[in-house]
């Protein structure tokens, strides 16, 4: 198709390129790289299941055109245990039982990474503020809040 364009970007630390049309979103682009941790669920940027970091900032992959990552750095949940070691946040989620079905978990984990980067000792209000855009239908919210606190103490 004539709208196809080639984009070059950094994906979890590696230089990659892709041919993609403007109407496709970032979640679709990641699926081409067999990365499924970012999931389109509500499709409206409200549930956070599609959270991806672009140049270090969390975005909703379902509301972000794939072509926009041209020249940028994209980080997905799959990079957090690149060395085979879970991140502090992931470890805290496990210890606190901060999920049930797990579908929303990668999004929460990435949001908590951004939270702790910007607020290393977050207040309860900071935690709720950063995570108010992530939904968990299994409602593991109390355990998630606990996990953030555990991770913050260790970070």
């Amino acid at each position: 198709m004539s709208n196809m364009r080639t984009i070059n970007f950094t994906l979890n630390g590696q230089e990659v390129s892709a041919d993609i049309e403007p109407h496709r979103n970032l979640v679709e682009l990641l699926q081409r790289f067999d990365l499924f941790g970012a999931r389109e669920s509500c499709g409206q940027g409200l549930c956070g299941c599609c959270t991806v970091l672009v140049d270090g900032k969390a975005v909703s992959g379902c509301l972000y055109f794939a072509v926009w990552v041209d020249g940028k750095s994209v980080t997905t949940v799959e990079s957090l245990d690149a060395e085979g070691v879970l991140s502090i946040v992931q470890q805290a989620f496990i210890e606190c039982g901060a999920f049930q079905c797990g579908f929303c978990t990668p999004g929460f984990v990435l949001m908590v990474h951004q939270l702790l980067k910007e607020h290393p000792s977050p207040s309860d209000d900071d935690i709720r503020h950063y995570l108010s855009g992530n939904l968990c239908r299994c409602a593991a919210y109390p355990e998630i809040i606990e996990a953030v606190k555990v991770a913050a103490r260790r970070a």
Partner: protein
Amino acid sequence: MIPFEMVEPQSLQEAVSLLDPEEPTIRPVAGGTALMLMMKAGVFQPTRLICLHAIEPEHARITVSGEALRIGAMATLSDVEHDANVAARLPVLKRAMRTLSNVRVRNVARVGGALAHGDPHMDLPPVLAALGAKVSVAGPKGHRELPVEALYSGYYETVLEKNELITSVTVPARNGRKATYMKVTSRTADDWPALGVAVSFAHKDGTIRDPIVIVSAATEKLTRMTSTEKELQGATVDDKALARAGEAAAAEAQILADAHGTAAYKRELLKVYLRRAVRQALAEG
């Protein structure tokens, strides 16, 4: 989503020239968070999007000129949230950001888009309107400036031509005026508001001077409440005066029913929250 073309102008002039006043399927896109929702719902099916990212650097700055604060239209909402000058001069704006959508949307959505979208439920326009802010608009015939409250002509409608772009918004010096914004949600905490009330006023000798009262979300478009302002002008902040102002606001606002509540209920909310907003503005300083 249906395929479309995306072009990336390298200057503001080029961007304006690529827009077509007669063609509704061509639109500018900056953050895209609102536009993509419309595209996914099928209510907007573009043939071409004019991506403004290439002109971002010069239009994303937040600067202080004299006593005023100028926010470039390409600044993200999180740029505004974390800007030191905003925090120091306009704490009300920083506070409003915290409950505006969510962190991911604020990381991407731009000030220009938040103003130009015309959805009456948005939080940024009422705050800026209450602060007396003006938007600068670029079009083929040059620049013009208009108050934020004059931007809206209807539900999702603005007075902007299809080939005009907001370039910045300028917030005048606060001069000690009190200001606050109250977002009232009627279902869950992260809901769109059932009602937004933004107020600013000078407070001298225990009385309210030169109030600006803005109502959003419950009305078809952001609305400045001039009768309510008259009621508040010179009033002392007490229950009686605030109740009178609340009644005036409920009578003045053209409140609509929707999933957040009936018009009758939202009128009650307005009476209560106008009072609470004035008191909160005083308390927040």
